[in-house]
């Protein structure tokens, strides 16, 4: 690698790595912070709609969109893992590659965990009526 990518491309790559590591965590946090108060507060107010949208659909969206973000994060983490695997098998001890590889492994498993949580919550939306006490 003689020239290497420019600074903007490097920045994009660095941020992409962090999306792969933490994307699922952030998506899950957003899912929880939207789905839970939406359900609890709407029910407490005695309603079953949020504006014009039925409550179950709103909660369902708060499950599906973060779920898709997590899937994207999982794919990015897998990509980093495969790219760094190729780089480190080509030899040349470079601790930046080893560090990114470790973060990618953490990212892959973390995203699987967060995807599981989001999917389990999504199943519950299918099972329970939103305001059953």
């Amino acid at each position, binding site marked *: 690698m003689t020239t*290497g990518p420019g600074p903007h*491309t490097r920045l994009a790559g660095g941020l992409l790595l962090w999306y792969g590591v933490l994307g699922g965590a952030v998506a899950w946090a957003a899912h929880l912070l939207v789905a839970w108060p939406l359900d609890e507060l709407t029910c407490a107010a005695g309603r079953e709609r949020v504006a014009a949208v039925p409550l179950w659909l709103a909660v369902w969206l708060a499950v599906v969109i973060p779920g898709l973000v997590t899937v994207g994060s999982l794919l990015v983490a897998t990509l980093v893992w495969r790219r760094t695997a190729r780089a480190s098998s080509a030899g040349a001890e*470079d601790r930046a*590659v080893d*560090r*990114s590889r470790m973060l990618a492994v953490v990212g892959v498993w973390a995203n699987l965990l967060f995807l599981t949580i989001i999917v389990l919550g999504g199943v519950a939306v299918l099972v329970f009526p939103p305001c059953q006490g």
Partner: protein
Amino acid sequence: MTDRGGVVAAATGVAALTTEEPVGRPTGWWGMVLFVATEATLFACLLGSYFYLRFQFGPQWPPGGVDKPKLLIPLLMTAVLVPSSLPVIWAEHGIRRGRRGRLRAGLAATLVLGLGFLALLAVEYAENLKHFTMTTDVYGSLFYLITGFHGLHVLVGLTMIGWLLAASLRGGSFGSHRHERVRNAAIYWHFVDTVWVAILFTIYLSPRL
């Protein structure tokens, strides 16, 4: 690297993906960012409590015959506080190039705007206290706690700004190689401004939705 495919390929190459980011930040910057993060969580808890109590309370909000908050003064406060970040940015850019005059002028301008905000807050309190106090009901408790706590943060931020101004007037404090304190105080001040926007939305605009 002009076509989009090339950009994506480069950004997902090993060299880009192993770029160190974040990198090269001083300890003071990290300390201030983490402090702001914990403070922001504190405000998130307070604003979350506002919505929780509001929605648990029932359809009528504010309760007990209190009018919906008037918008004139808070919008004036916003117009004073949010632009007050600009002189700080201008001053910080100035001192990075070693311009002490810009640092002093920028800090002084922010100080004036911040004091203006606190004066308007006093007017707002004087107006509201005629109708309800902190002990009237939970709405009053939330209103005064959240705005008062933010006002306290503005006061702390202004103390920092005034302290920086005093240090820069003394001379021998800041220059193009030494401006970490200016940067850290600026981060805090931007945070105080940003929180105000969230408070404006929560306390003043959300009851009208």
